[in-house]
């Protein structure tokens, strides 16, 4: 413990003291100085009061619902991709990549389906031609 702590040394410790970050020995030395020194006592009291006032500051509640505001903005900026009303808010969303892959698969199926229908049509046309040829013969 240092009972001969001067003003400058004492005031340099005020912040840590208010924050409760001083060791026991330094804290005791500071308290001893403050008890004997009116100007330091007053300065420390004012700092404590100031910090206590800051810690007690209240916050008014927001006037509007923050979540709704956030959802509205995201919906607008994503052009309806997120936070659209209805089933899309269930939390599950099909990724665009999967949708694209399914579209490609569908196009392939349709293409081959149409191609096979055309083949069938061509085969039946040919068979009809052969049958007509046979009838003529």
């Amino acid at each position, binding site marked *: 413990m240092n009972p001969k702590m001067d003003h400058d040394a004492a005031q340099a410790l005020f912040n840590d003291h208010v924050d409760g970050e001083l060791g026991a020995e330094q804290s005791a030395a500071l308290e001893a100085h403050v008890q004997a020194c009116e100007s330091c006592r007053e300065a420390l009291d004012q700092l404590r009061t100031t910090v206590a006032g800051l810690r007690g*500051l209240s916050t*008014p509640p927001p006037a509007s619902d923050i979540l709704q505001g*956030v959802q509205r903005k995201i919906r607008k*900026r994503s052009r309806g991709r997120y936070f659209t009303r209805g089933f899309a808010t269930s939390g599950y*969303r099909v990724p665009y990549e999967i949708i694209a892959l399914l579209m490609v698969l569908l196009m392939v199926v349709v293409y081959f389906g149409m191609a096979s229908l055309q083949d069938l049509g061509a085969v039946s046309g040919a068979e009809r031609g052969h049958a007509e040829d046979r009838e003529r013969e």
Partner: protein
Amino acid sequence: MSPADEALLIERLKRRDERAFNEIVRLYEAKVFGLVYKMLGSRGEAEDVAQEVFITVFKAIDQFRGESKFSTWLYRIATNHCKNRRKLLARRMEHAREQLDEATERSHAAAMSKATSTTLGRPDEIVEGFEAERLLHEAIGLLDEEQRELLVLRDIEGLSYQEIVEITAQPEGTVKSRLHRARIAIKEHLERAARPRKK
């Protein structure tokens, strides 16, 4: 909420699960709004900025690697938004001020000064009640950007020095010395406000 539950929520958010996002907003909206309100001093601006903070979270959640607490990452986003908004507001104010007539400005300042000097009490008396709150908000508004940020994070939001170091990317010694100057500035503002009644 336990850290494991929070990690799960963040994983869901990374998959763009809207319900997980809603839960996160509900969990942190009061803290974010409180922080932003004290940094900006305006309820309307604070509401708008708090919304922007959560939109950034939604967009940038993939960048959160879990190296710090989620709340620390969130506070960093919030403080950055506040700084940007203050710059924007300062530019607007500057523009508006240029358009003001000089005489009008002088008379307004005189009126403000008179109102302030006649309504205040001693520092140790006025740190209670509405007048003290108004005065503290006024004093916080007069701090420079970095001091205000540190004061709000430490003294109002009650964050640890370690968290503040992570949010501001400043060394602990710098944080402490700037915070000390900020507290002194607030105290001196209260003292100046108290002087007229002391006489």
